């Protein structure tokens, strides 16, 4: 075992005091503030006073105490942590993109609008949907936008009073019920069937004149494709409800099938997953929402349209839900996704899907020698194993992995599998790394449980006290 994470006893920046060194140009005498009443002026501003070189060293040292996708496999399930192309980093720093103000007139931002328009077209093509907004700023924000469209659709039909429920499978991402509730709907959860897919009988029983929508992801969070999806779509539509596609798992189907072909009405993308925009330690994301033609008029404004080779911000949607964020979306992320799609193209994108699914199935097969992998064996982009019966807790095995310099999978999700480990390798991992991952995870089963509890030991800190953090709540430096 030779892995060691960089470890510093790094103070908080508030505890550093080398004195600020950065120079701001201009001559600003405090006298200019004299025409403001004293009671409105700030008396005291406590912020760290640290030299520029110390700030850079501080954050460089902190960065070294952090794992990232550039260091290796990052197999968090449903997170699609694939390699983030450096090409996109480079393009995103072009001043012609980064130095553009959102209130500039259309004629001065034709380049940005062109990128956005093309991305809209690409995503419509990929999803086989008819219209799209790039405005939502994350996957959950896309869900929020999509469910607002559901609301407006039923309101427009005079049905909203009656349609108060959104049905969600028990395997769904937590954001689905949270988004539905946030938009004022009651959540009806239905159990999964014995093979891990939607229980059709349970769905039929749940569907009624009260149903506003059914939200699912396909493949689901067990990594299993909902093979009765067309039947599901028919049931949902016959009940007068809409079918919502959570695009978190799009990487499993891109190029093979699409939400449009499967009969979905609304879909959100996660550009920071499927299209490899960097996740920045928790964000920014980007969550465009595409809809079928009959919902086009409900999209938030503006979208980007083109007339006679001129791009413009189009506010013409008559029944628009309004706006969901400050401007036009997370442009820098849109630009990166544009470059990813342009680079890979139709052939590359499809190949990526095939490889992602092959990798997940390969890992599933390898891990099945030591773990129970419930439900259908044929996986798509991810697999969920259970550590039940091994005498080991999923959490302990996760700590064993990170102690070996490998980021652990998602643990304890989906909730329907006990002691779950949800593993999504993605297409950007070599067989060698997959083998290495499987070998280490299987080897962890031979380690004494008491020994596992002592891990990690090779990281900048040992196992953390989560209970203390909540109990003694300290969420700022004093």
């Amino acid at each position, binding site marked *: 075992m030779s892995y060691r994470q960089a470890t510093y006893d790094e103070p908080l920046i508030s505890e550093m005091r080398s004195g600020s060194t950065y120079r701001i140009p201009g001559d600003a005498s405090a006298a200019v503030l004299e025409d*403001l009443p004293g009671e409105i002026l700030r008396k005291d501003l406590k912020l760290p006073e640290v030299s520029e070189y110390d700030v850079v060293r501080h954050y460089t040292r902190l960065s070294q105490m952090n794992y990232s996708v550039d260091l290796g496999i990052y197999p968090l399930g449903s997170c699609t942590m694939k390699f983030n192309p450096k090409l996109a980093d480079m393009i995103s720093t072009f001043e012609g993109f980064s130095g553009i103000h959102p209130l500039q*007139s259309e004629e001065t931002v034709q380049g940005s609008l062109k990128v956005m328009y093309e991305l809209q077209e690409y995503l419509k093509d990929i999803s086989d949907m008819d219209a799209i907004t790039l405005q939502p700023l994350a996957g959950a924000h896309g869900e929020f936008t999509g469910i607002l469209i559901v609301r407006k659709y039923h309101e427009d039909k005079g049905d909203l009073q009656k349609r108060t429920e959104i049905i969600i499978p028990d395997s769904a991402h937590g954001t689905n019920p949270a988004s539905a509730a946030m938009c*004022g709907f009651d959540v009806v959860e239905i159990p999964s069937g014995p093979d891990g897919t939607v229980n059709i009988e349970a769905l039929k029983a749940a569907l009624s004149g009260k149903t506003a929508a059914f939200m699912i992801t396909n493949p689901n969070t067990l990594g299993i494709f909902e093979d009765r999806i067309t039947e599901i779509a028919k049931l949902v539509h016959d009940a007068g409800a809409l079918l919502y596609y959570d695009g978190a798992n799009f990487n499993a189907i891109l190029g093979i099938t699409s939400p449009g072909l499967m009969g979905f009405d609304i879909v959100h993308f996660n550009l920071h997953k499927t299209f490899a925009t960097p996740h920045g330690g928790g964000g920014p994301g980007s969550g465009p929402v595409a809809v079928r033609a009959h919902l086009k008029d409900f999209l938030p404004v503006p979208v980007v349209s083109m007339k006679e080779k001129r791009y413009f911000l189009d506010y013409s949607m008559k029944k628009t839900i309004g706006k969901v964020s400050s401007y036009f979306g997370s442009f820098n*992320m849109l630009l990166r996704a544009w470059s990813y799609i342009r680079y890979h193209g139709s052939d590359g994108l499809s190949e990526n899907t095939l490889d992602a699914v092959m990798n997940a*199935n390969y890992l599933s097969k390898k891990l099945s020698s030591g773990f129970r992998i419930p439900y259908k064996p*044929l996986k798509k982009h991810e697999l969920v194993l259970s550590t039940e019966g091994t005498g080991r807790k999923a959490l302990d095995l996760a700590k064993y992995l990170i102690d070996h310099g490998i980021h652990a999978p998602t643990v304890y999700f989906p909730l329907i599998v006990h002691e779950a480990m949800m593993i999504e390798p993605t297409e950007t991992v070599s067989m060698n790394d997959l083998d290495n991952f499987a070998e280490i995870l299987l080897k962890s089963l031979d380690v004494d449980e008491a020994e596992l509890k002592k891990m990690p030991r090779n990281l900048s800190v040992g196992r953390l006290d989560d209970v203390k953090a909540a109990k003694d709540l300290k969420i700022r430096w004093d």
Partner: protein
Amino acid sequence: MSINKDQAEMLNLLGVKDKLELFSDVPQSVRKPSFRLDRGISEHEVLLEARSNAALNRGPGMLNFLGNGIYDRIIPASVDSIAGRTEFLTSYTPYQAEMSQGVLQSLFEYQSMMCQLTGMDVTNSSMYDGFTALGEAVRMAYRINGKTEVLVPECIYDGKLQVIKSYLEGLPVRITKYAMDAGTGFLNLDDLKSRINGDTCAIICEMPNGLGIIDQNVPKVQEIKGEALLIAYVDPISLGILRAPGEYNADIAVAEGQQLGIHMSYGGPLLGILSFKRDYIRKSPGRLIGETVDVNGKRAFVMTLQTREQHIRREKAMSNICTNQALMAITATTYLGIVGPGGLRKIGTMTYKNAGDLGKRLRGMKLAAKDQFTGKSFSDVLIRFGSDQGDLREKLLHKEVLGGTTLAGLCAAAGKKFPHSHFFSVTEKTTTAEIEKLAGILEGI
């Protein structure tokens, strides 16, 4: 389909002929027949195409008087260097805390610095942008007191109001506007007071307000707010010189953090700053990073109070937010660390000085109306012209100047009440020569 040697071995172990066989569960009826999308191209070709697209944009290098929430401020080179570090850029949400202390500590520092800046007790580890953070703040206020009316200034930007409305869909909360004083440009305290009653959930005050003015009545709202919550929407740079919302008893403070070292990038990604009083923690949305210790007693950081969040609480969560703006929060932290309190004070002072100089110069023009607001601008200087200026933005653009955003374009109602009003925004970068050049161009129109 391409297959290399490793892949052949993998397929062999899986017992399938080719990769496509792994999709036998996808019915033929839903198989995608084709793309309109082109096939892939080389990195070099994408780069050339991106360059030519960037060249279709104009703006950088031009005289820039655009603002109203997003500003072209100085960004220290070190900020980009840190924000571009691959360990921060390409990591995920810090679910494995022991392996992610870098991001966790940086976000804890963000929370700490934002509390210092806003004078509030708690700041979460970021929201998407200023407008959505404001929408979440109103939802939070409703969770706190259950009351049903939110008061907003009549000069609030339409886009901001639309986002608040989107966030209130599904809640029984209505929005009512209160008036601004036509002389000073401050909020009208009497009008606001007359609208506060037992149903008032929250009062949104902007500082500076939608007219760009340092609103001297905002700190006085604490005296009349009664049971209602005060939500202050503030400019973070202005806090270098102006009182912090925590000092005038704001219950929740919200800000757009783009100015803190983040490039404009046509309006995204941005940074939503959400701060509040300690009593409201359990009603608050978003992630919180807390201090703890490891098994050896060493200080360390974790995500905490996650039972408020969607992945644990599902439909009972405080919000659906999951991905936030962590990298932007780290960027803002680095920015504040580098400029320091003296730097921020100077940036605020320079901005205020430049706004004063620009206002004085432009209001002295013949074109300007006699009637101007007497309140002082912070960075967005609203100039009321004596007559309709036609498409002023267009005319300025011909002279390679960005600016002249209409008040009507940002807030239709305020634009109607105060016609022929255009904004010219300044930053610490703006020079006397630039102001003079702008004035010369305007006088020549």
